[in-house]
């Protein structure tokens, strides 16, 4: 199966789905594949690694926020489980 999610920076622990991925479908990046634990909407983030509560969510090689709860690989990452990082 072809790539359906993009990792922008090697340090990132989330990928971005280029099209919606259904629950149970595979999230396939250039280097990895994890089953989607829930539906990932198009252009939304999906965790590639386990992130503990308070852990950094990294995109573009930068911390875009902290996990509000434990996030498992294959879970959708958005405002419901990602706290903004205050400057």
């Amino acid at each position: 199966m072809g790539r359906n999610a993009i990792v922008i920076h090697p340090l990132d622990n989330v990928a971005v789905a280029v099209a919606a991925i259904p629950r149970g479908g595979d999230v396939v990046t250039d280097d990895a594949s994890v089953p989607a634990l829930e539906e990932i909407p198009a252009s939304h983030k999906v965790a590639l690694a386990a992130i503990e509560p308070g852990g950094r969510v990294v995109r573009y090689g930068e911390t875009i926020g902290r996990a509000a709860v434990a996030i498992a690989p294959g879970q959708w990452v958005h405002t419901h489980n990602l706290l903004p990082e205050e400057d």
Partner: protein
Amino acid sequence: MGFLGYPRADGSAGVRNHVAVVSTVVCANGVVDAIARAVPEVKTITHTEGCGRGPADVIVAVRTLAGVVRNPNVAAVLLVGLGCEFITREVLVSAIGACGKPVETISIQEEGGSLKAARRGAEIARGLVAQAAAVARQECGWEKLTLGLKCGGSDALSGVTANPLVGVAADWLVGQGGGVILSETTELIGTETVLARRAANPATAQRLTAMIRDQHARAKAALGSLAEMVISPGNMDGGLSNIREKALGGVVKGGSSPICKVVDYAEPPRTAGLVVMDAPGSDIFCLTAMAAGGAQIIVFTTGRGTPAGSPIAPVVKIASNSRLFAQMKDDMDVNAGRIADGATLADAGRELIDFVQRVASGEPTKAERNRNDLFAIHTTGPSF
């Protein structure tokens, strides 16, 4: 290998060989347009400034117009003034300084009105076009190129495909000794600490932080609660969770080089490497500022599709998705959507760099073909 550019007396190199006919004041726009009807080879620079503004806006307008004249893409210039304005041709000539290119001037009042000024202006312009035509392209190193970066009409894929693609080209050009201008201060809100960390020295870090905080304060003062719409519900539906994530999706255009300097609106960087220019995100004000700062080419990513170009710097339009690239093919130059379709960033990056080389050596961009020559000077104060 570099590009085939036009060598200039100050050591710079143009990717175009424009003769610019420039209003020093809004009142001269009609005569400038008349000159361009008579001599269609020229590029016109018309605008709303030149009189009736406070000192801060006058300073920016003078810097912008002088900067455009000094842009290496301009071979020669004709300044058209009225005669009683604040930004006279004398003011502009002195701001332009020694640049080694022909700078001619006329005044509508001195010539005896619009028709005579247009006739005289057309005569001068024809001479400048002939003079410019004598300059030939020659091999130039990449260190002579400055690339401006812009995004506008972004969509959910802009920060996934097109902007990271531009980042590849930005890193490549900095590696070749060239210059890159990242701007759109409005869009940097939320990345203060990230950019400060990337600054090459503490003074630049401080200036970056102050610049973004000032812009945030101005946005709040002018827009009230709307200022927070920098991240909109539509952005969130598209998968962006917060303002920093959105801003980083724009910043990624600059690649990963250290930020070596911060410059004001339309101020030339006078250095190689990655520079941040303090200009608003609004497309035309920002394109104008980067062209005035000396950018010879501007790469511009879009997801919704915008036709904007510049009279001075070729604008390379990069579509973030393949649907837009197909739908607006007469406005789009490069399809970054192929990254979403499976192409690697590295392959798409080589394609973009190759296209930049062709544009630098003379291939027109879609915005140039369409003559979408848009120009507007940023102002902050009232008119009087």
